[in-house]
């Protein structure tokens, strides 16, 4: 059994176990156990990966396994990881683990909830381990679809509308993506008889430039929809606002990363020429995302909306950095994905916990909560500080890397746009502090909130796991950065070899 497939097998086994259970109280224990195991596995994988690299294994992908799946189209189930995917897997298992604890008190259809949640996680894990485009797409869809149920059934507010909107927009993105992937597939071999979906093999051929010009935008936008690329981001506020806590966590924390990761691993890696040629368009769009998302967040009243817009801004930064196409910026993009994943999951977990206590998400209806629920309050402040890029927490590492990297771009235009994007850090500070001030500080405004209970043990597990990771990355970024950096080398080398710009 190869270790990577275990990442798909364990969730599937967990789901099976849940389905066999009669007592719904055990469901969450089993889920926590399964996802805890997954977290351990992720730890093991990081360890194995680093030791393999340390031992001098310089393959582009490690632990590669390949099974022929569908012969006539040459579709394989092939898996493999490099430092980037390992990091993403670690992120995913952390967020899922925290998510399980954050949804500890789901009462309604508990079994089905956990099944859908873990199914979603399965899709995400599968996506990150796949190196076959088709399998990757398959897992991608697997991750997107349970979202509809999770929001539509367990959501709040206009949940059907939001679920429908989110699913339709993501499916629209998938449609573009599928066309893009097929386009890559049919150009994956110069003599058209050895077509392949395997990323590593495709990366060895040069897809003809006219084809790239068509399929790069399709693929990029396809993934970009999931990565909240302006103007395809509007599913995000509604979707997040309606989704239950754990789903928001997983969605913003992990699922949106699928977009960034895919844009990087498929769109840019396989079609660097078109990426270079067309990057200015998308650079403009993404920098709009960055600034616009931040401004959008200032004026919101609903906590989840604020966070959703901030996600738009932060995820925009991921795509922005990826498009800069140099080592440092891309490194920053990956760190930003991880960092944003953790801290936005943290945010949504905390928002969920606040909502569970106060039954409102409108910031003006709350106030002075710090005194009443200090643990959650402090955690919220930490999350906020991470979000505005305080050194010592992960957000800073990511943003610094992105900005320094982006500013090394040789063309003046890109550097000016970078300065625009940099200005988002102030706007971020504004909305983060605004929320903290209104929500937590000041006198208590509502006497009904005087006796709210502080965090319970499972909430603490969830939150502490995430804060610990955020702080760990923020305090000691070098190992993560170098792990990603070494994996980026072959990719950057390819880009540079193809584009002597």
């Amino acid at each position, binding site marked *: 059994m190869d270790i990577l497939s275990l990442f798909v097998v364990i969730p599937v086994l967990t789901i099976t176990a849940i389905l066999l259970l009669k007592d719904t109280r055990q469901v969450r224990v089993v889920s926590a156990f399964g996802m805890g195991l997954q977290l351990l596995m992720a730890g093991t994988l990081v360890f194995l990966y680093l030791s393999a690299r340390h031992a001098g294994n310089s393959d582009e992908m490690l632990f590669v396994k390949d099974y022929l799946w569908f012969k006539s189209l040459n579709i394989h189930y092939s898996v493999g990881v490099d430092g980037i995917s390992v990091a993403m897997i670690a992120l995913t298992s952390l967020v899922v683990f925290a998510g399980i604890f954050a949804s500890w008190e789901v009462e309604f259809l508990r079994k089905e909830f956990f099944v859908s949640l873990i199914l979603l996680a399965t899709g995400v894990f599968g996506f990150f381990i796949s190196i076959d485009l088709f399998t990757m797409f398959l897992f991608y869809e697997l991750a997107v679809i349970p979202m509809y149920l999770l929001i539509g059934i367990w959501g709040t507010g206009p949940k059907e509308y939001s679920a429908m909107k989110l699913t339709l927009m993501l499916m629209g993105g998938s449609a573009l993506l599928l066309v893009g992937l097929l386009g890559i597939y049919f150009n994956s071999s110069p003599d058209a008889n050895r077509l392949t979906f395997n990323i590593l093999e495709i990366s060895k051929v040069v897809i003809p430039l006219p084809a790239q010009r068509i399929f790069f935008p399709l693929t990029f936008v396809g993934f970009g929809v999931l990565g909240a690329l302006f103007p395809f981001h*509007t*599913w995000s506020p509604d979707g997040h606002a309606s989704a239950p806590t754990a789903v928001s966590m997983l969605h913003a924390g992990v699922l949106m990363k699928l977009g960034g990761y895919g844009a990087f691993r498929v769109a840019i890696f396989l079609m660097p020429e078109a990426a270079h040629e067309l990057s200015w368009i998308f650079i403009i769009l993404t920098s709009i995302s960055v600034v616009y998302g931040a401004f959008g967040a200032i*004026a919101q009243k609903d906590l989840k909306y604020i966070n959703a817009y901030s996600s738009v801004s932060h995820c925009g930064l991921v795509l922005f950095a990826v498009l800069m196409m140099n080592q440092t910026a891309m490194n920053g993009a990956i760190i930003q994905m991880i960092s944003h994943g953790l801290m936005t999951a943290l945010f949504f977990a905390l928002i969920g916990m606040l909502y569970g206590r106060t039954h409102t998400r409108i910031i003006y209806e709350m106030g002075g909560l710090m005194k009443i629920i200090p643990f959650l309050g402090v955690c919220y402040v930490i999350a906020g500080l991470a979000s505005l890029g305080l050194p010592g927490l992960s957000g800073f590492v990511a943003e610094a890397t992105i900005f320094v990297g982006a500013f090394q771009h040789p063309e003046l235009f890109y550097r000016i746009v970078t300065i625009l994007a940099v200005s988002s850090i102030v706007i971020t500070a504004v909305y983060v502090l605004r929320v903290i001030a209104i929500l937590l*500080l000041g006198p208590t405004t509502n006497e009904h909130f005087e006796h709210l209970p502080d965090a319970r043990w499972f909430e603490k597990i969830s939150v502490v796991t995430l804060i610990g990771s955020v702080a760990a990355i923020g305090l000691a970024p070098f190992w993560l950065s170098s792990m990603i950096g070494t994996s980026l080398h072959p990719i950057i080398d390819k880009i540079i070899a193809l584009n002597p710009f």
Partner: protein
Amino acid sequence: MINFSYTIWILLLPFLMFLLLGLAGHKLKAKLSGLLGTFGLGIITFLSYLTAYKYFFTSEKIDGAFQKITALNFTWLQFTDKLHIDMGVLLDPISVMMLIVVTTVSFMVHIYSLGYMKGEKGFERFYSFLSLFSFSMLGLVLATNIFQMYIFWELVGVSSFLLIGFYYQKPSAVRASKKAFIVTRFADLGFLIGILILSFNTKTFDFISLTNPSGAAISQGSSIGFLGLSVMTWSMIFVFLGGAGKSAMFPFHIWLPDAMEGPTPVSALIHAATMVVAGVYLVARMFPIYAISAPVALDVVAYVGAFTSLFAAVIACTQTDIKRVLAYSTMSQIGYMMLALGVAKYGGETGLGYMASMFHLFTHAMFKALLFLGAGAIIHSVHSNYMTDMGGLRKYLPITHITFLIACLTISGIPPFSGFFSKDEILAAAFQSNKFLFAVEYAVAGITAFYMFRIYFSIFWGKDTQYQHTPHEAPATMTIPLIILAIGAAVSGFIPFNKLVTSDGKILETGINLVIAIPSVLIGLLGIGIAYIMYRRESTIPDKLAAMFKYSYKWAYNKFYIDELYLFVTKKIIFRYIAVPVAWFDRHVVDATMNTIASVTQGVSFRIRGFQSGQLQKYAFVFITGAIMLAVLFIYLWK
């Protein structure tokens, strides 16, 4: 080579203390955590003095100049081969001097707070924040590269935010902390952009290679132009923006007076002695670049400094909240330091301003911390910030009275107190290079003496206010720091700064220039005299004067309406005309487009569904017609 590797503990100890107090503080007894924090800082202070001693008196000099020593350095985050953020300790005259300043003041404040904050809720939180601040400030001071400095710069900002907002249930404190953070954050944006430009052109973050006056970095950037100025100038102007933000230079000064909402020890430590001079320190740190390849930027520094010092001094004359007066006085004094840096050149005699600035930074830290702590002692006993509520306090608070008087004399530049020496150097430096700026500063010196003695007389003399509770002298934990700092303020003028801290590390020969010294003492005395007349006893002169210059008084009293301008820009322009429209645009244009696509699809499908009428015969009719048409098509038309 002396081994300085123990200096890592100067950074690590406060950080560990922060973690300990922050995570476990609520489990400890409040007093214990306070003592722990103070004890930790005591060790750090000791280490700092040890370092200073070793650096200044035992380390080797080359060419008679102090060398920059990288005590330790490790790569924290690698960007490219050349660009990487390191974490380390850099020792050179200014960083060692700052080490002394920061640890001394911080230690005093730690002790003082044991008394001042006694019984406050969140005592251990206060100490953990203080530790965080000490950690960040020391990291900033000891940074080996500009990005490390930026990192700690941000951390200093956040500790300031946390400490200003210490009374988080007080709306004004919350507002002030938010304002402080956002304003400095905005300035930091400039700093970051400056760093980016700098790093793009020089490909290094490292201070030693950046500031090497004959190094490649300095010559590289100055040759590339952009919009009429060299790239180096641009980046230095941007970097100075960051410094201006932290140091509350005009127009980023608005956060500092509000920051006085924090506990008074915090004001003494952060907003008077250490953090606010970080901007000065930054410019001093980058000084070779400013002086050699970005003289235009240096002029900006000088003029901004001069303007701020005048501007703040004028406002200080009208305020009635003593902490605010002190805050404006701080701005004014920092303006002095900036000006001194701005008029200096690199190396030799022309570097006088640099040395003067550092000297003033040092003495200012002592006397301003003293003033704030004294003010704290007063507030502690009177329970009010307003000098209208005070008067005749000399009888009740003798120790505070004496130390406060010393501080006032120091800031007014009366010999033999330290302020005289440092201010004199600054005026001399200004006189050397720019007579106009000298004139401004000369006037400011008089105004300073006036407003300081205004509050002095109002508090300790003036009318005999009836107090509900008889004011009593502060406990020993508070008075001892006062006494120590008073001694520091009184005698630190005799420290031979010209031998220790100079722009190129070499000894600078200076002396008291009587041509400048005597007039400056005189104008100080004049200021004191006017204050004496106006405030020694209860008198109507101030009100009459205020009525006479009604409008200018009103403008000054309202801080020239800069706050209102900011409020207008942020609330009206940014919030109402950018953020709200963006949010609206997002909902009603972008999202609406998506929704329109959806609803058009739905509408079309509603139309189409009419075909699915459930009328069997309609289906059959359509089917047959279609079949016939297809048959016709295939048989006759296709061919």
